[in-house]
């Protein structure tokens, strides 16, 4: 049901706006003066100043794929990252590991694994959701390219960026 919202009664000073306007002008000029006199801290001036040395361990840079100490690609193409990815940047085509392969017991591997870095928002959900600890957000943040195609990281590129990650859970160890 419709109901009436009672509006506040304004006094004269409020009605003519002027005191409020002057207060407002005071606030903005204070900010202006503070920045001119160097009292305000401003954001980092990116190309000149870089954060590379101070990047925290939890920094979320470009998502990459990693291999384990035995050179096995950790990804088993479960496609959970593809599912969770909010901008749908990930595309995976799964394949079956042939019987003769050393890692046949893992059975499944990504035939293609592509991350569209134009779409990626570096949210890190893929890393969080990965049940195999195969995808990690590394510290590369300046991902650039001249073509759209170049910005789609394929499997090779992702492994190149990701490299080897040791000391992770190795659950396929005792699988037949």
């Amino acid at each position, binding site marked *: 049901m419709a109901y009436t919202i009672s509006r506040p009664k304004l006094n004269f000073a409020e009605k003519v706006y002027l005191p409020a306007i002057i207060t407002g*002008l005071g606030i903005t000029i204070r*900010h202006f003066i503070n*920045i001119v006199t160097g009292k305000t801290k*401003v*954001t980092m001036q990116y190309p000149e100043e870089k954060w590379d040395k101070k990047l925290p361990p939890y920094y979320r840079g470009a998502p990459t794929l990693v291999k384990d100490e035995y050179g096995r690609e950790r990804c088993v193409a479960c496609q959970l990252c593809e599912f969770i990815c909010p901008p749908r940047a990930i595309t995976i085509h799964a394949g079956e590991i042939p019987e003769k392969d050393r890692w046949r017991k893992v059975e499944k591997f990504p035939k293609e694994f592509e991350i569209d870095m134009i779409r990626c928002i570096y949210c890190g959900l893929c890393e969080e959701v990965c049940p195999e600890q195969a995808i990690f957000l590394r510290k590369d943040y300046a991902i650039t390219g001249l073509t759209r195609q170049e910005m789609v990281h394929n499997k090779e590129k992702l492994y190149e960026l990701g490299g080897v990650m040791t000391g992770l859970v190795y659950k396929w160890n005792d699988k037949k």
Partner: protein
Amino acid sequence: MIITIVVSLAKAIGLIFLIILPMVSYTVYAERRVSAMIQDRIGPNRVGIPLTLFGFPKDIPFYGLVQPIADAVKLLLKEDFTPAHVNKLYYWLAPACAMAPSMMALAVIPFGSQLWGEPMVVANVDVGVLWVFAVSSLGVYGIVLAGWSSNSKYPFLGGIRSSSQMISYELSLALSVIPIFMVCGTLNLPDIVKYQIDHGWLISPIWIKGISLFPPGINFQEIWRSIDILKIILWIPLFISFIVFVISMFAETNRLPFDLPEAETELVGGYHTEYSSMKFALFFLGEYAAMIAGAAVIVTLFFGAWHVPFLPTTLHNPYTVWGVLLGLIHITAFFVKVALLLFFFIWVRWTLPRFRYDQLMRLGWYFFIEIALVNVFIVAIILPFVPK
């Protein structure tokens, strides 16, 4: 005769191309920097001299002062797109209409004392103030034409808003300055400046005459005589005039908090929604040119134009180095005053939110016209008692 034309042309071209247009561009830059600083940011500080283009290892950032040039180049190089559904003639005419009037208004503004004996005003017209009002209100045609010829709903709304806003505020704008003419007894802008030099800037309630730096000296009698209770009483309506005039000027130049014709958040840019490239730039620059013209008028009417207190207004021989220097100081003084006002314009823009349309109309028609009208009568009542 030819010499007069040449000199006038030189003044006009010098004023517009050497001073006003660069000033317009740098007002844009100032707008961005000041707004950034008010918002605790830095603003454009990067575009400088691109030495890397010529093989040097580093650019010179130069506080981003080259930004306006980069902007201009960008706007010039952008595709100039004319939508199919527009009325071509008026669509092309509108940007010119937006830019030209403010330039024309500047013609009667005395932006300096004199250089080599030549008064620093392009046209010394007896009806100077009327010229300013007449010409600057043409600016609305640009907006209305743009809004109408774009043949699209948002520009159309922008155009309508602009014309009704202009009508509302033109009245109070003109009414608010009538007390000045009554006090000064002239419509000629250089004469009004002269009056202010003699009797004090109209913005100031008391005028300390008798202190001089060239030659140094203090004349106490003169100081005593300049303090007059009736003049202080007279200053009150003049100050009201000033307030109404400045606020109306905000509305006239479509500046926030009265930028309803543009109103990005509601009208997607209003009248210039369909414009791109240099045509858009013309609207954009026209707006800033109007702002400069408005500031110049305010400076002329209330802040003594080029006058600098304690400095002589003229030398015996204006052809000496000192004479020329004094002329240049006066020109500088004028534009410093304009610049300060522009800063005020920017400052206000980044402080106040936009008015609602009905609030704007209410303010114009219910308050400003009445205040300005009553003000005229008050001045008329006081004026006979004030000694000349």
